[in-house]
């Protein structure tokens, strides 16, 4: 298992600051989300992590040392804008990418067959990439990224342009990599994917780090101390509850300070209230994303 550390990383393009002093750590075996609006600096950050471009200052460490050519074999990368060698056969392309990641020719061939079988695409191995449907080309692209069985998987907007079926395939492949203990980083705009897949996240805006931490902690930090309950009408006053508002057919219950959710639940049951659903009211990540992005943009303007 491998971890990645970034410490005060800066990158400028002429007068524009693309990445401004970003520091974070991707712990080994975690799925990490990189969020940010368009032009936030996500791709630049990823390219620097992949050693495609060099940072102006700061350090990027892979398992505690600067990335070496040999380490590149253990990290795989899927760029945002994708394409493959259109005129070449599926098998040749996958084998080539496997070999470039340090697999022997024989091993690369075996992994190609294995992956194509897994994706239920073994019958297209002799076809040219351009002969495949767009959806299948996308699957091959994902396969080309994962074929070398890397320790670290870095994907720039992996869900962009995918149809729902391929989103599901990609998600299951990433989840599988996570389960296998691989370190996965992906950038995205789709918050539901982050909520579904990520353990930790970093949000950047205008090159600056604006949100970073465990997903659970962030959701809690930005959520109101309320409960969402679907139940029979609440007759009379319940001493543990401060106020109640309606959100659709759900009641949003604000417990008094210091009152735990299970105390509220017990009190409601004791009063014979029929409860269908009872959950903590957390702010969706999307709302947090918009709020944080707007706040940081305002601060930058000031």
């Amino acid at each position, binding site marked *: 298992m491998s971890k990645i550390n970034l410490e005060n990383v800066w990158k400028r393009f002429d007068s524009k600051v693309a990445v401004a002093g970003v520091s974070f750590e991707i712990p080994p075996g975690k799925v990490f989300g990189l969020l940010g609006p368009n032009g936030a600096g996500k791709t630049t950050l990823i*390219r620097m992590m992949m050693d*495609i471009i060099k940072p102006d200052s700061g350090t990027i460490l892979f398992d505690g040392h600067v990335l070496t050519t040999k380490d*590149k*074999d253990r990290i795989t990368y899927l760029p945002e804008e994708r*394409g493959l060698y259109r005129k*070449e056969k599926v098998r040749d392309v996958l084998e*080539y*990418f496997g070999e470039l990641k340090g697999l022997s020719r024989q091993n690369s061939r075996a992994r190609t067959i294995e992956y194509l079988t897994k994706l239920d695409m073994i019958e297209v191995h002799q076809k040219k990439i351009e002969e495949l449907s767009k959806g299948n080309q996308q699957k091959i692209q994902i396969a080309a*990224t994962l074929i070398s069985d890397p320790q670290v998987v870095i994907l720039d907007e992996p869900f962009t342009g995918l149809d729902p079926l391929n989103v599901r395939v990609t998600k299951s492949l990433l989840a599988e990599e996570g389960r296998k203990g691989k370190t996965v980083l992906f950038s995205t705009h789709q918050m539901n994917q982050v909520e579904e897949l990520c353990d930790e996240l970093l949000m950047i805006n205008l090159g600056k780090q604006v949100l970073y931490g465990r997903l659970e902690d962030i959701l809690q930090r930005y959520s109101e101390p309320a409960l969402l309950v679907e139940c029979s009408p609440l007759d009379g006053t319940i001493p543990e509850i401060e106020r109640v508002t309606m959100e659709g057919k759900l009641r949003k219950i604000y417990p008094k300070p210091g009152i735990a959710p299970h105390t509220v639940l017990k009190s409601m049951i004791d009063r014979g209230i029929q409860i269908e659903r009872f959950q903590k009211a957390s702010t969706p990540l999307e709302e947090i994303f918009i709020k944080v992005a707007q706040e940081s943009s305002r601060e930058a303007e000031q």
Partner: protein
Amino acid sequence: MNKTLIVARREYLSTVRRRGFVIATIGMPLFFVLLYGIIGIVTYFTVRQEQEKAETVGIVDEGGLIKSDLLAKLAGSDVENTMEEQVKTMLQNRGGQQLKKLAGRIQLKTFKSREDATAALVMKQIRCYYIIPSDFLRTGVIRLEIKKGGLMSDNEPGWNSVRRLVVASLVDGKLDEALALRVSIPPKLDSEIVSDTGQPDKGGKFSQISGFAVPYAFMLFFMMAIMGSGGYLLQGVAEEKENRVIEILLSSVTTDQLLAGKVIGLCGAGLTQIAAWISIIVAPAALVFPFLDLRWSQLVVAVIFFLLGFLLFGTLMGGTGALGNNLKESQQSSIVWTMSSIIPVFFVHILLSEPNGTFARVLSYIPLTAPITVMLRVGATRVPWWDITLSAVIIFASLFVFVRLAAKLFRMGTLMYGKRPTLMEIIRWLRAS
């Protein structure tokens, strides 16, 4: 396997599998063989037809210089013979039957006046006519009246016949036979090519030409291969940039490995092409024409400089080609190298007339012009070995500089999209990096 070699293998295979490459490698030499075959056959028959076609040329002898008995026997005669024999016969026994043609199939016809000759010219009975004026002995001028012809047509048809006839008439009976013959027929040059050991070269003139054939062919092959395979390199880089495969590649290999792999693969493809051309054109030619002198030393020098040149231009084209956003822009960026490679061709006359001269040497020491210059020089003469070695060392040394420079350009270019950089921007970046 080394990653550079993995890239090289892929580049090589993807290039040699291209339809355009296969057509150029196998189809083009066959096409040229066929083309030149057809041209040869057509030319042969056309020339033969021309030779068989008799042309009538008029003479107006105003001074009465031409001996009348000679003229009478010349007119309308139709027997072929060699030039020397014709004149000899004419002088010795005045055998009119053998005085048909003095140069080509020319028939001479006399006219009493210019008016008669002009009328015949207008009626297309004669091709032209020569006037030997009455003051010829004083002026030495013979006048030709001829219709406007084509650019490539003979503008003095029958002149040799007329001139020699005039000379023969002038000396007839005044000199002894041998002297008269030498005056009428100017000296002929009979040259012999001698080999390095002083022995007559069995191939003669042909071996001199064929000695030049190998380097000359290599020069042509080099230019064609640089333009062809260089095009594939640019196409590959442009494609990889457009579809962003380049980013996946650069996450696995360094820019130096990628560029080196591409150039090595390209060299392999170029050599394959050369090998195919040699086996299709040169080898059969050597079998058909045993006098073709294919010297190993020349072949070795040609191959070495071909490889060095290919590495040099491939590296430079790869570096600058990466600056474009698409194939067209990549070609525009790298055209300067293609043009540089063919500079020596513009000076081919100087290089061949003075292959060991200062100018030829200077071009041999400039890395961009050296490959073709050296190939031409070794074909034209014996170039000192140290001279060839020095040139090779210069190219080799410059390769280190150019590889670094091209790798920098390649690194910047591969990830740069949008506006193409200006020359000043490129220089600034190179300095900054």
